[in-house]
């Protein structure tokens, strides 16, 4: 009986996760894949670990050879990378663009731009851009032409964000 109970609960959790795929669950999946890519490119990760998360089209260009080339460039041009963090998700038509930033030993920050296809609740990596960026402070909310803005708080400058 206990086994049956456990099975029902497990199936219910799976059902909830599958049927109610939201922007939030897609973001979690994308963040997980982004972390895997970062780990593979900056430590001892292997290309084979990334293959299940690559779209068919991207897998044709982002081959194992290309992966090794990118990994080498990341190491020589950006140095040792740490503090990898997601900072933006942009919603596109059946695709998401996710940007993450890491601190580098040879550059102040490195930006990782990921393009994900988001069809049938399955998220796959469809593009990757890595580049060094300069960290600049910027305000969080746009101020121009605003119709309304409550005065309840002081908008702060975002120190974590790297401007493109």
């Amino acid at each position, binding site marked *: 009986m206990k086994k049956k109970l456990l099975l029902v*609960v497990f199936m219910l*959790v799976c059902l909830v996760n599958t049927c109610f795929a939201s922007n*939030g669950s897609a*973001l979690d999946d994308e963040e997980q894949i982004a972390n895997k890519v970062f780990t593979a490119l900056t430590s001892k990760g292997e290309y084979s670990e990334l293959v299940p998360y690559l779209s068919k089209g991207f897998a044709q260009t982002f081959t194992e050879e290309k992966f090794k080339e990118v990994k080498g460039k990341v190491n020589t041009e950006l140095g040792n990378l740490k503090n990898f963090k997601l900072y933006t998700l942009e*919603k596109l038509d059946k695709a998401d663009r996710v940007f993450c930033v890491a601190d580098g030993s040879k550059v102040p920050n490195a930006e990782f731009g990921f393009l994900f296809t988001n069809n049938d609740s399955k998220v796959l990596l469809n593009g990757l851009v890595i580049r060094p960026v300069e960290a600049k402070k910027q305000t969080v909310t746009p*101020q121009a032409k605003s119709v309304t803005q*409550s005065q*309840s*708080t*002081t908008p702060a400058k975002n120190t974590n964000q790297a401007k493109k």
Partner: protein
Amino acid sequence: MKKLLLLVTVLVLSFSSICFASDGTNLDAEQKIAASVIDVYYKNGNVEELKQYCTADFAKNALNATSISRVKKELDDKFGKVDNIQFAAFERASFLDANKKAHPANNVVFAGRGEKNVVVLYNFLFDVSGKKPILINHNISGRQIQQQEKK
């Protein structure tokens, strides 16, 4: 036995949503709150229910009858009817409180198309330092759509 099954199920679901609070979990909650604020301006949504998800200052300053009717009028004057309002972006941010102490925040953006040829952006800033996101500020702005010249 059925009761026990139900109880365990509820507990597991609650546990999974509380213990694994991630960016995604926050985003889902923030999207829901943001959509409720938009509903207040366009569909006479429930203001009282919304107040539990906002700071006291925001509820007092932005969710009172005077402020809501002023914003409704301004939205109508500046953008006209707005269609297809959808989630557009999520951004990690931070904000300073009155004591200049920094707190983690999320900026959630919705976008729609106004009949006066503008893209309307709805920005919502959430404090995410607690267990649940709390709406602390919002901003609505318009960007004129540039017409391409025919060659």
